[in-house]
Each structure stands twice: as C-alpha cells, then as structure tokens.
C-alpha cells in the first residue's frame, strides 16, 4: 500500500495554519442549516433523511445549540423530531432569513445540501420539492449573511459548478463532484456527515472536527468505497476556501487552500488545550506555555525534516515528543486536581 504521505504533509501545514490565526474563533456561534432535497426513490429518501439526522446529532454533540440547527427535508414526517419543515424553496429562504436575524456578524454558518443535483454553471441546483434554488440563488441569499463566515457543502450529484458560482471572500465551498458532468448519485455526503460522529476524522486528535478534516475524511472514505468494490470512481469531491473559485480535491498540498476550512468548527469546544491567559503565572499557565512552545518546536522540526540526517531527526523529535508528553500528562493531572 502506498505510504500515506499526504497526511504527513497535510497535518503540519494545517496546524501551522491554525497557529497563525488568532484563537478567538472558539467564542463564535455556529449555525447549521441542512436541506435534504427530493429522493426520487425510497432508498434515497431514507438515506437523505438518515444523513441529515446524523449531521444534526453530530452538530449537537459538537456543542451547537439545538435552536441553531435547522433540518429541512422532503417529508417532515420521516423524522418528526428532527425535521422542522419541508425543504421547499420558500422554507430554505425563510430559514436563512432566520439565521440572519438571530446571528452575530462574527458567527459561522454551515449550509449542507443533500440530494440529487442537476443543471450546470449558475443554474446548477439540488432538486427540491417544488421550484428549486439554483446556485446563483444560493449565492444571493448567502450574500445577505455577510460578513459571517459561510460554508456551503453541496453533497449532491452534479454539484461541482457550485464552486465557481459561490466561492468568495470568507466562504468555504465543498462539493461532492468535480463538475456538473458527474451526475451519478453520490456517496460523499454519507461520509461527510459520518465525519462528525467518528473520532476517525479527528486527524490531529485535538478533540474537534474541522471542516477540512471532515472533507478529507469524506474524500478518502469515498475513494475507499469505490476501491474496495473495484468500481471506477464516479465522483471527485472539491474544496475551495479562497476567492478564486477553482476548487481542488487535495487541499493539504497546494498553497493555502484548506486554511479557512481548517479553522471552521461546529459548536464551541471547552476542553481544548488552551493558551495561557496573559499575566497568569500559575503552574498550569507555565505548563501550557511550555506546551505551546514545544508544539511549535515539533512543527518546526517536522518542517526541517529533509535537511537533517534521519537519525538526528528521530532523536530530536523523540526528545521533544517525550517532553511534550510529560508536560501534557502534568497539565491533565493539574486540571483534574488543581490543588
């Protein structure tokens, strides 16, 4: 099996990205709107509802307040406890208006589209009961939410053209397919929602799932889905979080694609390794500061791996990691028993 080089490249870059941004995101609220369109067949109707339910559960578990989660689907009776209304154009518009009214400018909004897609370019759409919203319609609706940070995840078939239409400053766009030409029913959505309910997507083991991690998890599992069944892949997921609207399937390795997505989390996490408060000279604060410094050293050493002899690299890395482990253990001990 090919060595998984991608992760080795992706994660340091991704976390380096995190460290270069202020960590104030954790104070913002996240809003989730899930829109499941027409299933067409019972099998898809059930799957779409199930994916939506799992996403709701994942979001709640991540700490999103229940009142900030909206799930619209073809048949609200399919899951009365979870689905608030039918996924018509009007209901989608109304839900987005409510988010606009109830959210602060520095909040985050995740719009998850599930269903069968069609059309192309600005007319790309996810089939909804009644008239559907096209990509350009979503773009206009989401413009109203500026300057909130917006993530649009279109897991439908033929979703690729959402990227050029919806990409923009402060926006993250994820699609299940590369273009409007990949029209087979997709599986990406199943793995995307699964990412929020499995620890397997927490690549850096920081206890939370970023949108980038969810994308990567879903992308890899989708590829595995086709490979294990010996099928030709009929979908290629893309991510774009820069304004240029190109989208790539491999966001860990090119430029800064994925940076914004790596900072986008659902909910507010409280048990993360914190940075010390300025002026705090308690033993815990000192340890946290040392931890932060050592973590940065690990990243730096990792970046310089190619410039060192393997033996020297390993020795220095081990030394840092052992020290970091001891500090981590001490931090956990102090947190459990501050006295």
């Amino acid at each position, binding site marked *: 099996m*090919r060595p998984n080089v991608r992760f080795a490249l992706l994660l340091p870059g991704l976390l380096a990205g995190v460290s270069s941004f202020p960590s104030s995101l954790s104070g913002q609220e996240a809003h989730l709107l899930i829109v499941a369109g027409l299933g067409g067949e019972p099998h898809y109707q059930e799957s779409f509802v199930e994916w939506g339910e799992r996403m709701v559960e994942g979001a709640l578990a991540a700490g999103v307040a229940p009142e900030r989660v909206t799930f619209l689907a073809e048949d609200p009776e399919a899951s009365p406890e979870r689905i608030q209304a039918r996924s018509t154009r009007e209901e989608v518009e109304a839900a987005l208006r409510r988010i606009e009214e109830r959210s602060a400018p520095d909040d985050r909004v995740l719009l998850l589209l599930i269903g069968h897609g069609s059309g192309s370019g600005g007319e790309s759409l996810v089939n909804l009961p009644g008239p559907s919203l096209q990509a350009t319609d979503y773009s206009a609706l989401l413009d109203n939410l500026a300057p909130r940070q917006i993530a649009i995840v279109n897991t439908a078939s033929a979703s690729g053209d959402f990227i050029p239409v919806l990409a923009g400053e402060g926006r993250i766009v994820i699609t299940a397919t590369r273009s409007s030409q990949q029209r087979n029913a997709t599986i990406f959505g199943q793995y995307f929602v699964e990412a929020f309910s499995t620890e397997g997507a927490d690549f*850096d*083991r920081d206890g939370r799932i970023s949108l980038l991690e969810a994308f990567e998890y879903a992308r890899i599992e989708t590829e595995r889905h086709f490979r294990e069944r010996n099928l030709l892949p009929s979908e290629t997921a893309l991510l774009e979080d820069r304004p240029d609207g190109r989208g790539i399937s491999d966001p860990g390795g090119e430029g800064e694609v994925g940076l914004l997505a790596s900072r986008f989390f659902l909910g507010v996490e409280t048990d993360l390794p914190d940075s010390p408060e300025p002026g705090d000279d308690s033993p815990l604060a000192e340890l946290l500061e040392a931890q932060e410094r050592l973590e940065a050293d690990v990243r730096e050493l990792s970046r310089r791996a190619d410039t060192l002899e393997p033996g020297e690299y390993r020795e220095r890395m081990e030394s840092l990691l052992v020290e970091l*482990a001891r500090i*981590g*253990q001490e931090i956990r001990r102090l947190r459990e028993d501050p006295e």
Partner: protein
Amino acid sequence: MRRPLLDGAVFLVLLQGLGSAALLGQTSEDPDALLRAGDYERAIEVLGPPDAPPSASPEASLRLADVLLEVGEHERAESVLRGALDGNPGHAGLTLLLGKTLVERGHLEEADRAFAEAELGEGGDALLAELHRAELLLRTGRRELALERFDRFIDVYNRSAGLDSRGLLAVAGAVRQLGVTNPVLYRDALRAYDEAIAQDPENFDAHLGVGELFLETYNAPDARGAFQAVLERRARHPRALLGMSRVAILESSPESAALVEAALEVNPNLVPALVTRARLQLAAEADSIAREDLNRALAANPISSEALAVLAGLRFLQGDLQGYEEARGRALEMNPRDSDFFITVAELAAQRRFYADAVQFAEQGTAVDSLAWEAFGLKGLNQLRTGEIAEGRSSLEVAFRGDPYNIWFKNTLDLLDVMDDFEEWGSDRVRVWVDPEDGEALATYMVELGERALDDLGALYGYDPPVPVRVEAFRRSADFSVRTIGLTGLGALGVSFGPVVALESPAIRQPGGFHWASTLWHELAHTVHLGVTDHRVPRWITEGLAVREERRAGTGWGARPSLTFFSAYLDGRIRDPSELSRSFIRPRHPQEVAFAYVLSSLVTEWIEEEWGFDAVLGILHGYGEGRTTEAVIRRELGIELPELDERFDTWFRETYATPLDGRDELEASIRMGRELLEEGRFDEAIPHLERARDLFPENPDPRGPNHLLAQAHRELGNEEELLGALEVHIESAGSDYDAHLKLAELREARGESERAIMALEAAIHITPFDLGVHRRLAALYREVGHSAGEVREYRVALALEPTDRAGALHRLADAQFRAGELAEARETVLQALELAPLFSEAQDLLLRILDEQ
C-alpha cells in the same frame, strides 16, 4: 482467447472452392480450374497421366512436377523432371525445380549441383537457384558465406531495374535472410515481395514468402491475409494451409489442428506440417501420436533438422537422454551451428514445465549462434520462470535488440519495468512481490498462507521445495498474462513455474469473484507436484490434486461438482479420466476446462479413497521416473486405462447417486423456492429449499439453495437457522464474501469471538482490502487476548490508509505494547505523536512504554 483464426469469409472461400471443384469436375478438364478448386488428383491426371510418356515440352513437365511437388509426390516429381531434362539438358527452370525436389527429400548435395546448373541460366530462375544455394550454405552451418551470398542480392536489386517476378522473389528471399543481422531489412524484403506480386499476382511463392515474413515478425493478421491470397487462387494449397495453421498457433486459436490436417490431406509428406502437427500433439501430451508424425516426417526427409529437433525434444521429455543425444548428433552433424535445434528443444522443455532445462537448451542455442535472438529470448523468459530475474531481463534485452518485432520480449520487458516498483515482503521460505498498491495488506496474508502451504503440502507429499518460493501478485490481468505466456489475454488466475508462482491480485475483481488464498494454495500444490516428479507431472493429475488440496486446505475452497457439471457428465460433454490432459490443452467447448478441473479432482479423490494416498504418491513418483500414464496406472492401481475410466464412472454414479437421480426434483425445488422467495413467501419457500439442500448439500452454486435458505431465514429473523444455513453454504461456496461477513456479525453478536474471528479470517482470504474487517478482527483478537493477531490486524489496517492515521498508529502501538513489543510500540507511538503532538492517549502510552523500558 484471441480471435478465431479463420473467419467466416475464409471458410466461405474454401467451401466455394470445393463446391466449384465438384462442379468443374463435371464440366471442365482445365487443370488451372481444377487446381483452383483444390482437385489435385484430377489436375494431375489431366496434366500427366502416370502411364503417359514424358512430355517434350519443358513447360508441361514443369507444371506437372510443380503440382506433384505441391502434393508431396517427390519421387514422381523427380522422375518427371529428370525425364524432361533428358530432352532439354541444362534447362534452368527444370534444374531449379529438380533442386527444390531434392531438397525436400533431403538430398542436399545433389540439390546443390542442380542449383549450380540452374544458376548458369538467366533471369529469375538463375537468381532463385543462387538463393537456394545460399540457403543450403545456411542450413549446413556456413552462415558467413551464406550471408555474403545473400548480401549480393541487394546489389542485384539496386543494379537491375528490370527484374521479373521470380527475380524479385529471389531478392526478397535473400533480403529476408539478412533480416537476422538487421531487422530493418525485413521491410526491404517485404517491398521486394510486393513488387514480385505486383508483376505476377499468381506468384504463390511470393505470397507465401510474405506470409512467412509476417509470421517471423509476429504479425498474425497480415500473415493471414497473405496466405488467404493463395487460398483464394488455390483453395487447398498445402503450404498456405500450413501457414494459416501457424497463424492460428500464433493467435492461440484451436483452429490450428484442423488447418494442419487439411494441409496434410493434400500433401501427406509435407515435413513442416508433420512437424507442426507433432508439436500440437506434444502440447496435448499425446507423445505417441507425435512420434508417429515425426517418423513420417523423417521418412520423407531423413535429414529434416526441424523433425530431428522435435524428436530430440520428445526423447528428452521422456527421459531418454541417450535417444536425445542420438537425434542431437544427427541434427548437428549437418549443421553444428543450428541454434533452431536448441530453440525447439528449449520450447518443448518449457511447454512441459522443464524451465531450468529450457534455460540450458536456450543457452546452448546462444552458444552456437550469437545471432539466435529467439534463443536469447527463450533463455530470458525461462530464467524469469526459475526466479533469475536480473539474468532473465538481461537475456531478454539482448534478444529484443536483435528482434525488435518480438511481442513476447517486448511485453515481458515492459512488465519487468512495472515490476521494478513492486514491493518485496516475506520470510526465509516465502518471498512475496506485490504491487505497492496492494503492499502489506496482501503480502502479510500471502506469506502466512505460503508458509502454511509449504508445511502442509511438504508433509503430505514428503517433499520440501527449494526455498525461498517466489510469489508474485499482479494488479492487472494483462500483466499476469504476460508474466505467464508473454502475451495478454490468458484466462487463468494463477500459474506455478515451480519455485516461482504468479497470480492475480484480489484487487482486480469484486470481492467474491476470486479466492486468492485458494488459488495460491493450488499453485503451491503444483510447485510441490513439479518437485516430486522432477517436472514430469502431466496436467490431469497435478490439476486434480491441486484442486483436491484446495478443498483440504480451507472450508469451501476449490472447485467441486455442480448441477451443470452433472449434466455435462451425463451428456458426454466431459472426456474420460484417461483423456483428461487433452481437456486442459485442447478443450472442445468453452466449459470443458472448468469441468476438467473438477473431474480430475474427483479422479484423484477416488484413487485416494480406493487405493490410498500412497498410490497417489506412487503415481507421481512413476511419472517422475519417466513412465507413461498407462504404466503408472498399471503399476500403482493394477488396472488398465479403459478399466480406470469404467470404474471411475461407477464410483461417480454411486457417490453422487442422490443428486444425479433426483436432478429433476432438485431443480424443481430450487425453482419453486426461488419463486416463493421473490414473492416474499419466505415460510413457504423454506421446505422446497430444504429439500433441494438435502438432495445435494454440497451444491457449490453461490446463489443456490443454501444461499436462498439463508436469505429466507434472514427475512424471517430466524437467527439460529440463518447461522446454520450460512455455515452449510460456505462449506461448498467458500468464495461468498458477504456470507462470511454476515457469519462473523452473527457470531460476534452472540459473543462467540473465536468463531467470529474464523469467519473474518476466511473473508480476508477472499479480499484483504476491507479496512472495516481488519478493525473488527483486531478488536476481536483483543477480546480473546491474542496480541499477535491484534498487532497483525492493526498493522494491516494502517497499511490500508485509514483516515485517522494518528489514531491507527496509536492503536497499533497500544497492541504492540501489550504484546511486549516495546521497541516497536515506542517507534509507532512516536509516529502518531509526530502527526498529532497533543494526542493525550498517545502521550500516556509513550510514557508507559518508557517506564517499562
């Protein structure tokens, strides 16, 4: 299978020709028309009745002799020509044809004198005589001199603008011979042939030359076109039919035998056709029939080097080394640099799986002739089969430089480039080479299984093959095929060359379409059989035993009789046991090979039941001593082949009496059960399916009654019955991947971890690429406290590129820690922390490992 040789159009031409013959026979005595229609007998009567005095016209004699030569009446042809020469001394055309007749009879010195006389003439005949004299030099080992003579023809061509068709034929023939020194010259030869044909479309020798040239450059479609051009003009031309047969051989088409038969029907003394037929018989392991053809060939031409080479090869295959030396002496006496002799023997040796000997013979070919590219290539191909990879590549590179048209050499060299990226895994006894995409996930289990196979089979047969055994797995069917036969399109899944085994990777197919473990076991069984018999084991018994060993090795492994098999057996569509090898090599219908595997396994099962496994070993040792099937059966079983067939038939009908007698009821029960299932009437379906199961519990149909019963019980929620049905189902349909997974799930839910482990291990033997299976298995191993199993599974899971690599590394490190592999655990957990430095569980584990160390 490649496209069939003769398409409908060609047969139409032949049939039209024959139809015309009958018609013309009634209405016309025109010899040209008779010949065109293939009525040689009547044409000869018209051209020169046996009792008629010699014709005064040299042209009439030439025509008659030419036709006589074509049908192999060499003696009469010689007599006609000599008679005509009496009246026309020095006639170039007559002496040329006399020379050719004498060559056919093996009288080379006389032939040379005749050609020398013809050479004194003018025009095309003189040039052809010069060509044939040079060819005689080549045939008698004087290559340099021959090449000099051939070389002169280039000047002849360049200087003479007005060569006639026969002159151009001579130039083409000479330049073709020069192709061995410079392959580009083949193109010039083709151009000269084309010009010869343009001047005279009836120049059959030019058409045949084109066909042979294309055969030499492995271009079957164009070769076919050239031979067809002759057959359109002369429907039963023996050399054209022989050419078509060779095209069929090149394309691995079964039509080759019928075509060579057709050629020999017209000319029973056509030595190359007799030799071709002998080789086809040898391929089918019908040695005694082959020998008859060789005797006929040598009667027609006692010094035929190609017949002597095949005879020598046959004697070698039969272990008659003295006989081999005698034939070798005769062949090389005439031409000590006859690399073709060694090439032929090497090919025959390789065909019978004597790969190491094939290397030796090919090497002798290269030693006597440094331009014998085919010998270099054969040496290389067989070195690869014996595991000498670097040496094989080197030989093939030499061969391909000299013969860049050779598709076998090219394919194999391309494959070796692909294999440069392969990963090597393994133990001291089993080395596995896999595509990097398959990597550790496949290699882990292949090595384990290979070790077990060598232990079990070695103990059973009392033979330990030389180690390490090399196992190669290919992710592309085409690559596997090239590794096996040098060409794409082979329909097999695995091959054993003895110490080297190759098979397809399970990644190629949907889970359930291919049981890699069973296939590997099968091939390793061949490795042992080849070793026990010193590579003299015939197909029928090694295939039969290999399938039997599969069935012994794993639940539901290996082919077994099905309802279709029973029908074929009863309808006589399966050959008797004594003729089984032919079914593998020359099947009469598409299913015959599959049936032959089953039948041969049943024959070996029956022998073991009736006479004990020692008799099986005795048969193998008998083959190893060079005995024939008749002899080993007589010695070990005390019966003759007809009795073998008869007694097996009795055993088979008794053993399978219930399903054979109850076939109608069985099929009706399955049909009814299936219909009721489709209607959702599960309760009602069960009794019918149970009846079908009871009539034939070992039904291997993956969608047969056992599977359907499981389906019914699943729908009804009858867990206990579902478990039972699945267990019975996999006993005969072990490739059903989903059934193993379901069994594992049910066993796990019932807390039966050990049995769940068995089910998942069985699933991995079908495909090892399902990450979820490895995680489940690792957890189960942890549950039962089997640390080594847990480590293995987490290691493989890691190789399958899990999304949470840091988590996967941590789980592996944890398992390694508990297995006491502290150094490995430390290394692994550090890798996890390098990816996720604040991963708290991994940090704790690292500190625990350090404490322990």
